[in-house]
């Protein structure tokens, strides 16, 4: 076992990279929930869709085409979902929502199989981000650093939008109390629509970013769903802070758990989740008191 600093730096970077990927997924899910009280179990399927679209586009026009267009395509699917299903499900209870989106998981899983087949796809890392960078005494893949940087940039952008802009204020008001927000003259429906689409786009972006790192398989959406849900439940639904904290906790527990206690690694995270729910049933940083 290695005990030198480089080893732990490397692992910390791994943890951070995983956290950022999860953050991209969970932020959309958590803000949609906070604002609309809507639980979208199909969020993972949107991530898989993003990866597939990116893989297809990359084959035609290279990585960057997939990177920029996959989120747009997934947001497009989000628009269809919103106008076809989600808008009508808004007033239903959490169970109905869970079930409709559970049905969506089934449907989308088979649709990706029909369109793209069962074989795993993959994308090459673009030349610009290929290779490794040396710093802090370690060599780390450039592409992974890119994911970390992208995650941090999106955290900063969202923090700015939510904290400093008018639309951010509207979203915060909506999360706080949507009836009140409507009274204040905010077009709540339109706000929901925009937030839902942005959430979908971020899921698509996460898929596009993950595709060169992992393999693109039909069940990748199902695989990522549970970690994403854990992140937002630990963090507390509806808040940026919660999504950041939850992602970091998951990323670090998972990574260092794998190194220090490999036998316990996967049970550890569930135990942590159970502990959080016992002590703080609404998560660490819920949007509402």
């Amino acid at each position, binding site marked *: 076992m290695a005990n030198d600093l480089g080893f732990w730096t490397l692992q910390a970077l791994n943890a951070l990279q995983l956290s950022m990927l999860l953050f991209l997924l969970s932020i959309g899910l958590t803000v949609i*929930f906070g604002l609309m*009280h809507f*639980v979208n179990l199909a969020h993972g399927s949107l991530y898989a869709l993003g990866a597939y679209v990116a893989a297809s586009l990359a084959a035609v026009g290279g990585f960057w085409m997939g990177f920029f267009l996959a989120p747009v395509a997934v947001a497009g699917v989000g628009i269809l979902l919103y106008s076809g*299903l989600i808008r*009508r*499900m808004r007033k*239903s*209870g*959490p*169970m*109905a929502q*869970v*079930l*409709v989106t*559970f*049905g*969506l*998981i*089934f*449907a*989308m*899983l*088979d*649709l990706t*199989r*029909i369109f793209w087949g069962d074989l795993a796809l993959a994308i090459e890392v673009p030349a610009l981000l290929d290779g490794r960078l040396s710093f802090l005494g370690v060599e780390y893949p450039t592409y992974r650093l890119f994911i970390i940087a992208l995650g941090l940039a999106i955290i900063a952008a969202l923090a700015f939008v939510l904290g400093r802009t008018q639309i951010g204020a509207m979203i915060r008001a909506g999360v706080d109390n949507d009836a009140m927000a409507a009274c204040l003259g905010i077009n709540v429906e339109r706000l929901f629509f925009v937030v839902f689409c942005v959430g979908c786009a971020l899921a698509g972006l996460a898929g596009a970013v993950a595709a060169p790192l992992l393999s693109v398989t039909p069940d990748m959406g*199902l695989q990522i769903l*549970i970690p994403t*849900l*854990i992140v937002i*439940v630990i963090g507390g*639904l509806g808040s940026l802070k919660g999504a950041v904290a939850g992602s970091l906790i998951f990323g670090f527990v998972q990574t260092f758990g794998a190194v220090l206690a490999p*036998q316990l690694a*996967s*049970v550890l995270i*569930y*135990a942590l*989740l*159970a502990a959080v*729910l*016992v002590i703080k*049933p*609404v998560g660490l940083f819920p949007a509402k008191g």
Partner: protein
Amino acid sequence: MFRHTPLRYGVLVLLAAAALFQAFTAEYFGLEILTEILILAMLVLALDMVAGFGGMVSLCHGALMGVGAYAYAMLTTKAGIAPPVAMAGSVAITGAAAWVIGAVCARSHGIYFIMATLAFGQMAYSWVFEAPVFGGDDGLGGIARLDLTMIGLDLTDSRSFALFCLFALGAAYGATVLILRSGLGRSLSGIMHNEQRMRALGLTVWRVKADVFGLSGMIAGLAGALAAQHIMFVSPGLLGWTVSGEALVVVILGGLGTLVGPLVGAAAFVVLKHELSAVTPYWHLVVGVILIAVVMSRANGIFGWVEARWGARIDRRVADATRKQQPGEVVSDA
């Protein structure tokens, strides 16, 4: 609060008759399907008890069934315990596990309850999947069925086993009705309708929730012990969260909080699944679309829809008929 209406009795009788008919006439695959339906029906019965009458929408009932199945498998194959004792043991173990989950999650509501139960289910799944003692991904085989030869039943025969499962389901249904009609069940209804008030009246709400969740877990555990005997093999997939999701789908498809509806739903779901998977490998797509359509229709599932449409009329007619009949009988006596 649970009530048996004439419509519900009628459907129950029809279901039982259909199951018996199938059990005596079907061929092997038909018996396999029947047994699958009966075991799923038992699981969704347990789920409807907590979700439909206590508002506790659990996403860990599949895992609880898996716990029951693994408990039975471990007790019989590794500990060498006799099947009847092992069945009782697996029911008790699952009940205890469910009680703990219920107690811990009692404070959570709505989506948090769903997520919390999901977390516990996944915890069990991960543990079973990774601990070598449970056989890991490859599962455990060589599981014996109950020996009922002393009463002339050879359970290794598919037909006898299907009948045995039907009997067990009948017992579980009876137990569920009794639980829902007991003081505990009444209080559970009260909690679902108004938890705050029940607490203000002096009820220890978490205890009631945990107790009922434990009882529901016992039924799920029984379903698991039967599933293990049916397949004579257990694998971690039994505990996966999609099994819980499917159980919830069946409850909704059939009609939440009607007990009879989920039984109808179980039959419909299994038959649909088999018919579709024979036609296309993409049957998940069809099931997904049907599910979305049912939930979007806002009806309370198949049975809920029937009840809303015809329930009151049938009940009234039956009531009228019985009223008319009584004087008639007196006359014939005279």
